[in-house]
């Protein structure tokens, strides 16, 4: 079934798009992540322009995260204050990211920049996840108890703030820096950033795990919403039809994924997720070094 995408200005197989949404939804339900980091590369692989893939993926991630946020909010698993700090910093980061995105697109290096960001960020995150899950597995075999989080030097920076729900009294500098970074990556890569935000909240901020997922969803929803609006304004590359098709698949897939995920052990899940992240990084890395099919590319001037 061919569907014409009004913003991408091309026809695609509608079932293929719903299928991609389903597959990404399945994996995101399985691993408890938004899945934007899988969605953007898959859309680029099937031939969509990088700009449309990134901007639409952010829009889709927002839709996929909202029901999770509502559920966690009702259960009181959201640290509103921490969420606000992360979100405000995230908005600044995403505004900066979208500006850079538009600039890079004007000079014709968007494909390169998106691919390089994916290779570097996913390469690092995937390697850390895989290593962490191996360590956890070894610890469990040797029955070494896991240590609780420690106070870092960065918690002692100025402008201290009390985050009651997270039971923290730390400087706002680390959460602001993390929020800004995630917002920036969200704009450039079309991701929610949960796969970086969640470990950062646990290991860098020392937040209790109970409020981590809900609070990260709070930031993801508002920042991806901001990215959607900012990308619509400065690059006009959010395709609502593409986003709708992806969401139809993703919402269905996520339910199956969540059911499957409950049968896997924590460190196994994280190990698999790490491998998946590394595979995406390698796949995009290959597109950078592979000899292109055509030595010239044509690009309309907007």
């Amino acid at each position: 079934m061919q569907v014409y995408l009004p913003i991408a200005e091309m026809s695609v197989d509608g079932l293929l798009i719903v299928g991609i949404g389903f597959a990404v939804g399945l994996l995101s339900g399985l691993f408890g992540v938004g899945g934007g980091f899988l969605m953007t590369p898959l859309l680029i692989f099937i031939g969509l322009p990088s700009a449309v893939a990134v901007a639409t993926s952010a829009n889709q991630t927002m839709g996929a995260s909202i029901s999770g946020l509502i559920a966690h909010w009702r259960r009181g698993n959201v640290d509103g204050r921490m969420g606000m700090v992360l979100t405000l910093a995230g908005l600044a980061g995403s505004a900066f990211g979208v500006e850079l995105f538009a600039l890079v697109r004007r000079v014709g290096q968007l494909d390169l920049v998106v691919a390089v960001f994916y290779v570097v960020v996913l390469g690092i995150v995937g390697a850390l996840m895989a290593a962490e899950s191996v360590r956890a597995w070894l610890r469990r075999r040797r029955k070494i108890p896991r240590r609780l989080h420690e106070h870092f030097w960065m918690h002692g920076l100025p402008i201290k703030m009390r985050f009651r729900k997270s039971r923290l009294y730390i400087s706002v500098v680390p959460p602001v820096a993390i929020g800004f970074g995630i917002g920036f990556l969200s704009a450039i890569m079309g991701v929610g950033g949960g796969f970086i935000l969640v470990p950062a909240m646990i290991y860098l901020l020392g937040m209790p795990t109970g409020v981590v997922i809900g609070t990260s969803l709070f930031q993801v929803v508002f920042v991806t919403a901001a990215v959607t609006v900012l990308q619509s304004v400065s690059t006009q590359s959010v395709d609502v039809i593409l986003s709708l098709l992806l969401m139809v698949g993703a919402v269905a897939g996520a339910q199956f994924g969540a059911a499957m995920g409950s049968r896997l052990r924590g460190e196994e899940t994280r190990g698999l997720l790490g491998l998946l992240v590394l595979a995406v990084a390698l796949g995009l890395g290959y597109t950078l070094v592979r000899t292109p099919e055509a030595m010239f590319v044509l690009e309309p001037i907007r």
Partner: protein
Amino acid sequence: MTRVVLALLGLLLGACPARALVAELSQREIAVSTGFTGAELIVYGAKDSIPADIVVAVRGPQTPVVVRQRTRVAGIWLNGASARFDTAPGYYAIASTRPLAELLPEAERGRLRLGLDLLPLRASEPDAGDGFRNALITLKRERGLYRQAENGVSVTGERLFATRILLPPTVPPGLYLVDVLGVQGGRVVASRDLTFTVRRVGTSAEIWRFAHAYPWLYGLSAVVVAAVVGWVGSVVFRRG
């Protein structure tokens, strides 16, 4: 069709000897809708026996493009040198009864801009080589946006002629100029100018216009749509 028949009658009766050539299009408007998979247009007409050959040239609206060359830097492929073509037609098709080179001398073809090899494509960077120009033509031909059919115009009984113009799904919207030329002895002896328009219609066109005219509102709507679909979808699937 009646117009053609009337014109033909006129020709045969010799009432209007100056009109050695008449031409018409099968459609004056092409609607690009959501399910648009391309279109076929027919240029047809009648001529006297004296302009023996016919050339039909179709020029679409100008759509500026950049051609970028892929270069390898430290093992990584990236976009290197580039050339802008501000006056490149978004669509160009030429069809004739015989190969153009046999019909008209090169100087005349250059003056009338007939033939893909003589398209007035000038790069904004003066030092850009012919490579960019050739790449532009090759890439546009691959997409069906530039075409040249040396024997594309068929003539029936020395009087009636017709040719098809194929428009691919990616055809740019705008005004299209169709030149129908009668050629005899290396000169253009008769000509007719026609036009047609390509318009975007339907939902996808509305979405495109909305996104470009009201980007803030479009972005906010995309957020609302995503929120509603995400929430409703999760409720439906949890119960089901």
